[in-house]
């Protein structure tokens, strides 16, 4: 039984990977590819926030600004010094991670929603820096004409080509995220979130892991920033505000907090929904809000909860089919 479901799981994963690989060829328009690229960048952001907040309980709402730190690092290195993407990507990741570690310092003194408020403030400070240091950052006008990356002389300059770069980054980001959350670091994060005092007594260096949680979310934001800057070829400070962090927060709440697939599901759902709601024009945000309230009310663990509910339903259904022989529901609940 278990074997069968794991085969099904691999068939499902294989099908999704195949679909993703051929997507630019079957997409109805270039615009669809553009949307999917955008989704990929936001998935990186929501993976980062989910690791820090969903697992580690560290509310990093400076995420929008940290995304900006990554984007500006890449953009400045590229436009001023001509540094190629493959070098400014790791530098963006490092700079955003270091900045995130500083943003995380107040976590020694304040927790949960208080920490959220402090990080919102610090994020706005970073954003104001981007707006006001116009000699360095181009101010409110931002930076334009950022050149696209190229691979051995092959320029990655169209949405279709960027699609594969972003796809690889998202898959890598997901796999690294899974490695982080499912072993020692992830357990230490969950320990701090579940019971801070008990975590200390179990030898968890809480300060270290708090800062690490921030730095990891910063690293994801940095990668998303470098990708965004070179894909969009133009950046300005108004995207790297608190509202971006809020959108990412909504994505993980809707998808499933403390759950990596939840990040992916939430991001895809919200951004796709956003496209469909465009026809309602100014009612777009209302529809968006209603959708979020419905999810939070009926699926407090996020949309990924549906998978568990479906599994329960299937078990019950199977049990009814084989009534008399075995009662699956009973077997499942008795320890």
């Amino acid at each position: 039984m278990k074997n069968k479901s794991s085969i099904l799981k691999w068939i499902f994963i294989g099908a999704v990977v195949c679909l993703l690989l051929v997507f630019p060829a079957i997409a109805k328009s270039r615009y669809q590819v553009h949307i999917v690229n955008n989704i990929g960048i936001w998935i990186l952001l929501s993976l980062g926030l989910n690791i820090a907040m969903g697992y580690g309980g560290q509310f990093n709402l400076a995420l929008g600004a940290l995304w900006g730190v990554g984007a500006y690092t890449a953009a400045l290195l590229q436009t001023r010094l001509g540094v190629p993407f493959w070098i400014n990507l790791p530098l963006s990741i490092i700079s955003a991670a270091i900045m995130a570690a500083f943003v995380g310092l107040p976590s020694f003194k304040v927790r949960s929603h208080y920490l959220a408020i402090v990080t919102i403030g610090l994020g706005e400070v970073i954003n104001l820096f981007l707006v006001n240091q116009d000699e360095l950052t181009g101010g409110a006008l931002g930076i334009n004409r950022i050149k696209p990356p190229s691979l051995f002389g092959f320029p990655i300059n169209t949405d279709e080509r960027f699609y594969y770069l972003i796809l690889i980054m998202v898959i890598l980001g997901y796999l690294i995220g899974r490695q982080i959350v499912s072993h020692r670091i992830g357990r230490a994060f969950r320990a701090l979130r579940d019971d801070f005092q008990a975590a200390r007594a179990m030898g968890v260096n809480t300060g270290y892991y708090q800062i690490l949680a921030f730095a990891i979310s910063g690293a994801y934001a940095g990668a998303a920033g470098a990708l965004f800057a070179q894909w969009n070829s133009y950046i300005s400070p108004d995207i790297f505000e608190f509202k971006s962090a809020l959108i990412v927060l909504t994505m993980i709440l809707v998808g499933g907090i403390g759950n990596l697939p939840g990040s992916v599901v939430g991001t895809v759902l919200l951004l796709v929904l956003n496209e469909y709601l465009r026809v309602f024009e100014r009612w777009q945000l209302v529809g968006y809000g209603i959708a979020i309230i419905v999810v939070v009310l009926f699926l407090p663990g996020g949309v990924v909860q549906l998978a568990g509910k479906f599994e329960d339903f299937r078990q019950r259904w199977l049990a009814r089919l084989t009534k008399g022989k075995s009662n699956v529901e009973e077997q499942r609940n008795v320890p």
Partner: protein
Amino acid sequence: MFLEIDQLTMQFGGLVAVNNVSINIKKGEIHGLIGPNGSGKTTIFNVLSGYYKPTGGKVSFEGRVISDLPAHQITAAGFARTFQSMRLFKSMTVLENLLVGMGHHAKVGLFQEIFDPVAVHREEQKFIEKAMELLDLLEVADFANELATSLPYGHQRRVEMARALATDPKVILLDEPAAGLNEIETESLRKTLTKIRDLGVTIFLVEHDMKLVMGICEIISVLDYGKKIAEGTGPAIRKNPVVIEAYLGKEDDQ
């Protein structure tokens, strides 16, 4: 001296929770700490595990002052504890709870942890094996993959002890392990404590169940209003008039 609590004072504003208390604990013994509610027992535990920095005096362990170390370094020095109100990690299985305690023994570094799945897997297998041994010892191995907080109360207590042992301590601080247990469970707790002692772990026990304390502790310290009022073997403590007075009140008070 193995563990030396030296003239420890813990003051919260005007309240002196622990007042100039000195206790020496020998390696391998089961040392009891009793006293009426609010006499400062848990405060001493919280100082020992690094939650509070003492306002006076110090704690030394194997010749080294530990009372000014952060909590996780005290754990690394060989202290583990359980809590009066159990504090298992609620999102984790029994096994994962133990693995958290083993984390600080990890030899795999941060970058290896993220980018070298093979090394991580190898280390994890070692940890799981050791965790299962501990769960076996405390007779909760069958529940390894259950959510820890879904177990019956008595089992959760054992899991909490197993989790403390997972940090590989030299001293284990048990804060009222018999609270909420029935007589049969308390009896099996007594056996568990003997097993833990046989592992070579020194036990410092806060407990209200006198039968258990008298039956198992080699030496007992008694606190009242933050002061140590007596210390001795079970029978001596039982006869000590100062202790009787602290628990029952003085006759001519009436």
